[in-house]
């Protein structure tokens, strides 16, 4: 229970707002970030029933532009970017030749020959280096790390739209899920995307860093009467886990393939070629030997990241994510299990600090909004 030194950590343009609001700050991916304001449970429930306001400015942005930008994006991501219209986004893996994850990303098509990848904070330098290396020699396509040009503010929850709408001329209801548009919010020129990492409807707003506080303050003031609260990374993690969204570094990494992570839907199988295609096509045909599953803990215990998983008394893997969920009020998590043990209802055990507790495979996601 010691306070980390924050001197060398990167700060988002909203850092002073978090500190002024009394948020508990933690180091995350090299950033000084708010983990909670009023408490994880309170913030989690606010997002499920009303709305939450998140600073996710630590996320990175890498843009790829040029006449051959599409070919470059097709090569370095698994999903089929040729299907993206201008103004549309999708989720994708940034794969290794082994079909595992360098990172997971959202790909936005900004213009004909201009794409934006939103990447994980801790991976910005790694991803950028990887991308530059792997698009070299692909013709007219250049990658630029534009992370410092954007603050990113997420408004998530059932009342997100009604809170945000009075602040903008954009007709928010006309933005379809995983589409985006540009316009003004609180008098600031922004890009508004109907995306998120909570399992709720909502928006992510790309804001010039110098105007981040202005947008943050305006959304907070407009949202307070409707029950919107500022929310930290703690609630973001419990929310995304209930929605079974994978977290890089926990559920997916350089050792797990896209198919083992049960993310085959992010692969454009009709594409000609992309990094890792050979391995993934073979795994698709032959099947994988293990797969990620959701589980519920049946005994009174919380299974957390890194705890060992036992099948028939034999160690079979580790818990990749696990928590007590505030909304479902259960101990849930995800783990990789042998493929013949992945059916819902399958029993297995988890070592919780020396004690074996019972768990059961359940369908994903744990939570789906109505």
């Amino acid at each position, binding site marked *: *229970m010691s306070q980390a030194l924050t001197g060398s950590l990167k700060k988002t343009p909203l850092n002073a707002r978090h500190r002024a609001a009394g948020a*508990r700050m933690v180091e995350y991916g090299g950033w000084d970030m708010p*983990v*909670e304001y009023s*408490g*994880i*449970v*309170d913030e989690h429930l606010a997002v499920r029933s009303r709305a939450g306001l998140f600073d996710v400015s630590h996320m990175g942005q890498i843009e790829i532009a040029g006449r051959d930008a599409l070919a470059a994006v097709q090569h370095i991501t698994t999903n089929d970017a040729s299907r993206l219209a201008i103004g549309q986004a999708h989720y994708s893996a940034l794969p290794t030749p082994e079909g595992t994850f360098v990172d997971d990303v959202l790909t936005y098509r900004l213009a004909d020959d201009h794409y934006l990848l939103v990447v994980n904070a801790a991976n910005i330098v790694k991803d950028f280096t990887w991308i530059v290396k792997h698009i070299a020699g692909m013709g007219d396509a250049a990658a630029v790390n534009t992370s410092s040009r954007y603050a990113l503010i997420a408004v998530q929850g059932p009342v997100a739209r009604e809170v945000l709408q009075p602040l903008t001329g954009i007709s928010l209801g006309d933005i379809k899920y995983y589409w985006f548009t540009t316009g003004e919010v609180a008098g600031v020129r922004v890009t508004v995307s109907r995306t998120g990492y909570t399992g709720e409807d909502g928006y992510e707003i790309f804001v010039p860093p110098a105007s981040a506080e202005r947008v943050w303050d305006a959304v907070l003031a407009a949202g307070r009467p409707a029950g919107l609260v500022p929310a930290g990374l*703690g609630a973001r*993690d*419990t929310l995304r886990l209930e929605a079974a969204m994978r977290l890089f570094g926990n559920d997916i990494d350089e050792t797990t393939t896209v198919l083992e992570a049960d993310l085959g839907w992010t692969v454009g199988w009709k594409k000609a070629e992309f990094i890792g295609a050979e391995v993934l096509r073979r795994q698709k045909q032959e099947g994988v030997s293990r797969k990620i599953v959701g589980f519920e803990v049946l005994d*009174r*215990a*919380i299974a*957390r990241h890194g705890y060992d998983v036992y099948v028939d008394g034999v160690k079979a893997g580790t818990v990749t994510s696990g*928590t*007590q969920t*505030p909304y479902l009020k259960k101990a849930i998590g995800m783990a990789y299990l042998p493929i013949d043990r992945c059916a819902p209802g399958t029993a297995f055990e988890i070592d919780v*600090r020396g004690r074996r507790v019972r768990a059961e495979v359940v369908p994903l996601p744990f939570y789906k909004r109505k």
Partner: protein
Amino acid sequence: MYPVDLKYTKDHEWVKITGSDARVGITDYAQKQLGDVVYLELPEVGRQLNKGDAFGTIESVKAVSELYSPVSGEVTEVNRALTERPEAVNANPHESWMIVMKITGAPGIDNDDLLDAGQYTELTK
């Protein structure tokens, strides 16, 4: 804000010593660091503890933390009602006792390492 009739440890437990009985819980600072408490594991009555031994675990949504005995002695009572509704630790940390111990040795002399309210307030500034 820290009650003056309690003593405190650097591990953020409080202890209320009455004669040779010691009532033990965690401090307001500790519950704030943990956040929303969801599980509490406590020992059985009769367990012998040395000062500094782990006597249980407390879990919040985001973290798990060990509980350390502030004194040496035997566990004589366990607050089973608190394990049923551990969120009370967040609401009333200094009333939410976890165990009672019968202190071995001289309660005062052996435990002069414990902090008073003023010292503990300084520690958690």
